[in-house]
């Protein structure tokens, strides 16, 4: 029986991109359905009645929700190629920690910076930059967060790269000046077809 895979997402969503990249890494054929978040489809509301958010992966009619959970699911089901999670339990725990860190910190801080002005804005801007510096420190000298291979944290973070220009514009700073190693990492990721075609 051939797998039927559908991804409900929106073009600008960093979380949706994580799912697309994971599917591309595994070479999974799927149907992409663009959602209009101001007019959510009956399918989305039926598949994610609890949060009503994208992305939702629908595999043979069954929904999987939350981007980090989707990526792990894709890795477990299509386990014959391109492993995303490390095999070592401690490394796996570290990867989950950093994706959780990205989830807890990046988006919320960005929003706070975007929606504030004056001193408050400056505070959130400093916080956002320190978050990226932390992520740069975590990368260290490795080519990818996964070491030599593109892994869970790489998938978790790279979609935010296309938002860097927006962060920079609203925050009036240059990411390359603040976090050059992170930019170098992002450029390495962008050499991957699975990332650029997403």
């Amino acid at each position, binding site marked *: 029986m051939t797998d039927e895979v559908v991804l409900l997402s929106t073009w600008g969503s960093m979380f949706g991109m994580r799912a697309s990249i994971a599917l591309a890494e595994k070479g999974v054929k799927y149907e992409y359905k663009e959602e209009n978040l101001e007019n959510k489809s009956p399918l989305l509301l039926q598949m994610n009645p*609890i949060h009503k958010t994208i992305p939702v992966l629908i*595999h043979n009619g*069954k929904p*999987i*929700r*939350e981007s980090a*959970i*989707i990526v*792990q*699911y894709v890795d*477990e*089901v299509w386990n014959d190629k391109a492993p995303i999670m490390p095999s070592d*339990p*401690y490394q*796996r*725990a570290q990867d*989950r*920690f950093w994706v*959780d*860190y990205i989830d807890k910190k990046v988006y919320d801080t960005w929003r706070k910076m975007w929606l504030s002005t004056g001193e408050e804005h400056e505070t959130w801007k400093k916080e956002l930059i320190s978050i990226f510096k*932390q992520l740069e420190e975590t990368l260290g000298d490795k080519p990818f967060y996964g070491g030599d291979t593109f892994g869970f944290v790489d998938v978790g973070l790279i979609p935010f790269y296309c938002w860097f220009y927006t962060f920079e514009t609203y925050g009036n700073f240059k990411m390359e000046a603040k976090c050059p190693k992170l930019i170098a990492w992002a450029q390495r990721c962008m050499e991957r077809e699975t990332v650029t075609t997403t």
Partner: protein
Amino acid sequence: MADEVVLLDFWPSPFGMRIRITLAEKGIKYEYKEEDLRNKSPLLLQSNPVHKKIPVLIHNGKPICESLIAVQYIEDVWSNRNPLLPSDPYHRAQARFWADYVDKKVYDLGRKIWTSKGEEQEAAKKEFVEALKLLEEQLGDKTYFGGDNFGFVDIALVPFYTWFKAYETFGNFNIESECPKFIAWVKRCLQKESVSKSLPDPHKVYEFVVEIRKRIGIE
């Protein structure tokens, strides 16, 4: 080589309780270290420099932070005893989803109930009860969220029961009358030694919340 397992924790923390239960389920011997959150130990600050929070599991000197991540780590390492996550990827994804739902909803709403008043508190209570009812629906007629076996979602959720007396007293409502199936599930969980020995007395938690409220000036 014998495993060295240490848990940095704070007795009323539902997040710490999750790890205590998991270690008990797996029969793992460990050293419990109580942290004073107003005077965090050098070990805690060194083990969790990013968030500086408990719980932290330290296995052979290496720290694992965030309770659900630590539970999954224990499951991965001690995989031959008492599996806590389903083997099927789809059911595993569902278990992770519901544990994440507990993290997104139960703690924050519960906290709002005992720290706020008036309309804000009423809104929090309403949402809290809705969340428990949704979880009740998810439980259905199963013995545990894990089905016949106590599992990941049960572990993620049952510790919050110890805070119910505090929520009910300060929120002026009764959870059992709103969500009887939920309480029935809690009671089944409490029959397990791994749970009953890992959870503090709700009365003690309530007294702790009374103290905190005084300290942060809520009247």
